[in-house]
């Protein structure tokens, strides 16, 4: 039951950011939470399923970004093993590392498969950078890295706060969660 709920959190976060008018995705919180609670495989399944369901609503064309979800799940599992959710500073550090990894993969997919045009926020930055004279590849890379680093830092901070806020009765059911938060 954890995976469907985490996928639903991922999708609901898109709605929350939209309602708050934030130019962010935050649609990987469920993936990070699952990887930190139940390990990398659960995180990967959550990420891929999230991408598949999102693709159903917005077009199967976004399926290649499932690879980014896999990278995020692996980074979150590594962070959990290293007690990366123990405090906010560690969450910020691991979020930045994940943002760089996810941004690099995302830039590659955006450039090769989508000719630089994907989600509205990141594409607006790409267009702005291209207008300033950067080449298409440079603009896509810089825009993807910048947005992904900010987004993943926030995702890791929010996921870390949620993990530390879990009642011990619930957290104790997930061995990874105890390790992730250093309890």
């Amino acid at each position, binding site marked *: 039951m954890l995976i469907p709920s985490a996928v639903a959190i991922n999708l609901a976060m898109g709605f929350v950011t939209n309602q*708050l008018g934030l130019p962010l995705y935050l649609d990987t919180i469920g993936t990070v939470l699952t990887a930190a609670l139940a390990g990398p495989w659960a995180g990967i399944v959550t990420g891929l399923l999230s991408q598949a369901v999102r693709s159903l609503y917005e077009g199967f064309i976004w399926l290649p970004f499932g690879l980014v979800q896999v990278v995020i799940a692996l980074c979150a599992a590594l962070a959990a093993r290293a007690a990366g959710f123990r405090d906010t500073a560690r969450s910020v550090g691991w979020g930045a590392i994940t943002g760089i990894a996810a941004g690099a993969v995302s830039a590659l997919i955006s450039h090769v498969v989508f000719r630089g045009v994907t989600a509205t926020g990141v594409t607006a930055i790409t267009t702005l950078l291209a207008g300033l004279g950067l080449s298409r590849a440079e603009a896509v890379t810089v825009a993807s890295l910048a947005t992904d680093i900010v987004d993943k830092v926030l995702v890791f901070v929010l996921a870390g706060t949620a993990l530390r806020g879990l009642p011990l009765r619930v957290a104790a059911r997930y061995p990874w969660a105890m390790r992730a938060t250093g309890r």
Partner: protein
Amino acid sequence: MKLHPFTPFALVLAVAALAFILPAPSGPAALYAAVAATALARGMRGAVVAGAVVSLPLWVFLVLLHAILPGGEGAAAALAQGARLGAVATASVMLIRTFDPSRFLDAASAGGWSLGAAFLIVSTMQAAPRLRLRAGSILEAQRARGLVAGGSPVARLKALVPVTLPLALGTLAEVDERAMALEIRAFGGGGRRTPLEIPAMSARDRLLRWGAVLAVSAAAGWRLL
């Protein structure tokens, strides 16, 4: 008569494959026109509008990046990519509007899928709109308690915490209750589930599926040769 629940998935995958295989820009443009015409013929005007709304911002950026700003790949590339996105988005909206979770679960059970895998897909599809509603309720409740969810970007960022934490913690706390409810109904008891109504695989389903396979194979063969 309704299509078998797996047939629309096969058709959307075929549209996605054709969108990239057919020669640009005429191939993707013709495919988009065909998908939109099919939706209109089936009385799904809303799917055409929703598909256009989803892909409209991307069209704008495609034209800006490739047709207006220097260094782009030209208007033809923008048209081709926009048509690809539009075709796949419209086909996906058609699928989601006709998706029936219980029929899908019955078809999966009848097809010999493991109950766990079928349930994972269906429960995810059902959980997504439910949690979206809950996110909306939490946001409204926090606003009623004085949360400022507008204004500067910093204020909006601060509003994330009181919305996200109740959503995530509430959902995680619910996982146990739902798992227990399933156990009470012998979900983990093993044995094959017997669907009461097995969705029929009609001649139309077979025709559409084989047609999709043939169309993708023919397009791929034509491009390779």
